[in-house]
């Protein structure tokens, strides 16, 4: 459609209203909004503010009572809703996967509705599973109930992307998973979005998620009245009214941790070693550097474990770690997520990766130092 670098499309809502019979005030009252192509807009607001209703009016799961919707300038209010929905991705809480279909069938749902041929669907499914970090060979033929909550959600995201729609709607996409998984999924979505540049409209009740993911945030009050529509930086720096200030909550310095990326800070580089190295040699090297812990890397430079020497000393050679790592963050993760990860670490820091490869360690001290400097700037 568009000849820009983005694959997204511009979306415009013009005076969109939804009123239900028997209710005094409309659920959405004359919402007008324009979303530039390739941007991520987060809808936030208290429950019952009409954010989900507004979202569902975009793919007309809820028919607007009045108003117009424009997709790249084309009026979609009068289009056949079934056809329309095939060109708009839809990702919902928990994934909303069809329990009786396999992962591949779920992901290939829309392409199949669009009558793609079988080979093209199959290769697209594998490509998307790869993109969301699920090995197609392992997961293709599984059923949703054989997956963890986070994996189901990944499949849900892949399904939303399947037919390469210019616009993707997300309704509380990460609301049903635990905090650590949520953070990972958010990071993955951000890197997917870096690559694809879709137009994403995402509903969330979590202001931190909105700050982290959004190019712009739409803060809605009762009846979907726009309280503020701006970039996260400006919403944090200058809330337009008390309602917004209350909603983003106190400690806006701390909220800015959701805007800063790990890569923005200087990383420290403790000693590293490889699986299979001789423990005595490693110990000597680490002690010579005046340190007490070491990061273990595998043959592809991926961090596998961060151990104290006394734990390492139990074996002759550095062995394959068996536990799953929790204290790894991507260099594009926010400082706020990095702090979460540090909480479960006994080293007061988290290992940082870039494209799966280890690039250093971010420490708690570095983060607190940075907060202090922000405060000084603000004062």
């Amino acid at each position, binding site marked *: 459609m568009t000849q820009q670098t983005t694959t997204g499309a511009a979306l415009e809502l013009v005076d969109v209203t939804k009123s239900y019979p028997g209710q005094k005030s409309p659920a959405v009252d004359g919402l007008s909004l324009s979303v530039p192509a390739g941007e991520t807009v987060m809808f936030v607001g208290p429950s019952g503010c009409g954010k989900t209703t507004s979202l569902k009016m975009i*793919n007309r*799961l809820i028919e607007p009572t009045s108003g117009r919707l424009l997709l790249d300038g084309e009026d979609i209010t009068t289009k056949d809703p*079934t*056809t*329309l*929905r*095939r*060109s*708009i991705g*839809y990702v*919902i*809480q*928990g994934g*909303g*996967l*069809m*329990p*009786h*279909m*396999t992962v591949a069938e779920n992901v290939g*749902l*829309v392409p199949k*509705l669009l009558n793609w041929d079988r080979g093209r669907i199959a290769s697209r499914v594998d490509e998307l599973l790869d993109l969301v970090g699920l090995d197609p060979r392992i997961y293709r033929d599984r*059923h*949703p*109930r054989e997956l963890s909550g986070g994996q189901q959600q990944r499949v849900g995201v892949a*399904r939303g992307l399947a037919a390469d729609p210019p616009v993707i*709607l997300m309704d509380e996409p990460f609301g049903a998973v635990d905090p650590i998984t949520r953070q990972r999924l958010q990071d993955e979505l951000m890197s997917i979005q870096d690559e694809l540049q879709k137009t994403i409209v995402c509903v969330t009740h979590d202001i931190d998620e909105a700050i982290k993911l959004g190019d712009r945030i739409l803060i809605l009050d009762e009846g979907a009245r726009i309280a503020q529509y701006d970039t996260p930086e400006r919403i944090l720096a200058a809330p337009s009214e008390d309602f917004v200030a209350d909603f983003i909550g106190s400690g806006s310095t701390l909220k800015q941790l959701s805007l800063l990326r790990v890569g923005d800070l200087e990383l420290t580089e403790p000693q590293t070693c490889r699986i299979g190295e001789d423990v005595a040699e490693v110990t000597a090297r680490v002690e010579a550097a005046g340190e007490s812990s070491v990061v273990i890397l595998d043959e592809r430079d991926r961090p596998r474990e961060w151990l104290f020497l006394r734990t390492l000393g139990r074996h002759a050679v550095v062995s394959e770690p068996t536990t799953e790592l929790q204290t790894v963050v991507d260099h594009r993760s926010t400082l706020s997520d990095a702090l979460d990860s540090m909480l479960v670490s006994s080293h007061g820091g988290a290992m940082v990766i870039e494209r799966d490869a280890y690039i250093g360690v971010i420490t708690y001290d570095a983060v607190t130092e940075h907060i202090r400097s922000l405060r000084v700037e603000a004062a």
Partner: protein
Amino acid sequence: MRTTALSREDRLLLFGLPAVVLVVLAGWCLWRASADLGDIEARALAWDAVGQLALEHVLIVLVCAVLVVGCAVPLGILLTRARAGFLAPAVTAAANAGQAAPVIGVIVLLALAVGFGFWTAVLALTVYAFLPVLANTVAGLRGVDPAVIEAARGMGMSPFQVLRRVELPMALPVIMTGVRTALVLLVGAGAFATFIDAGGLGTLIQTGIIMFRHSILVSGALLVALLALLVEWTGRVMELFATPKGLA
């Protein structure tokens, strides 16, 4: 089919039922082949006579089953569509009153109204077995997670595609349970077909009682019971196959 996922109760029924049916049927055949029967018994229990009655019985059950499924499932689908929802309370009320009606009463009344014969029996039994299939179709379709239906619509499935590819497959196990219940009811009620000259294994029971011949009576009762058990087992096997792999 993953037998490991079956409960102990299911396994008991799945493997126990056919065993019981086979053993009892073999026992009856042995008795029939070896017993020294009187003239009346020998005629009533002649192999081809019994075979003919069994065939009639199965035929009535099958015709009714096809009619019941063919009518009750579409009606159930209709009742669960938003636009026809207003019909549901009326149908539920009628169905509940219908459930309280004794089957023998329904058969006799219909026979008095439209005459004796095969098709009257079919009509009466179809009415009688209608409810479980209808109720289970409605319950099965209502039980489908609304979030999944909305996701399907959000993907761009047409209402018919949502019904065919999402709602029906997910409701199928529940619908099949209703069909099984209906089939078993039909075998039992089929025994009354003889009262209105529509044949079936009930004829043996009736003859046995009228002529006071216990061997005929018990043979009829036994064969009807075995047929019911066999149908129950078939229904359970079908249910297993009808359950989509991702559910169970």
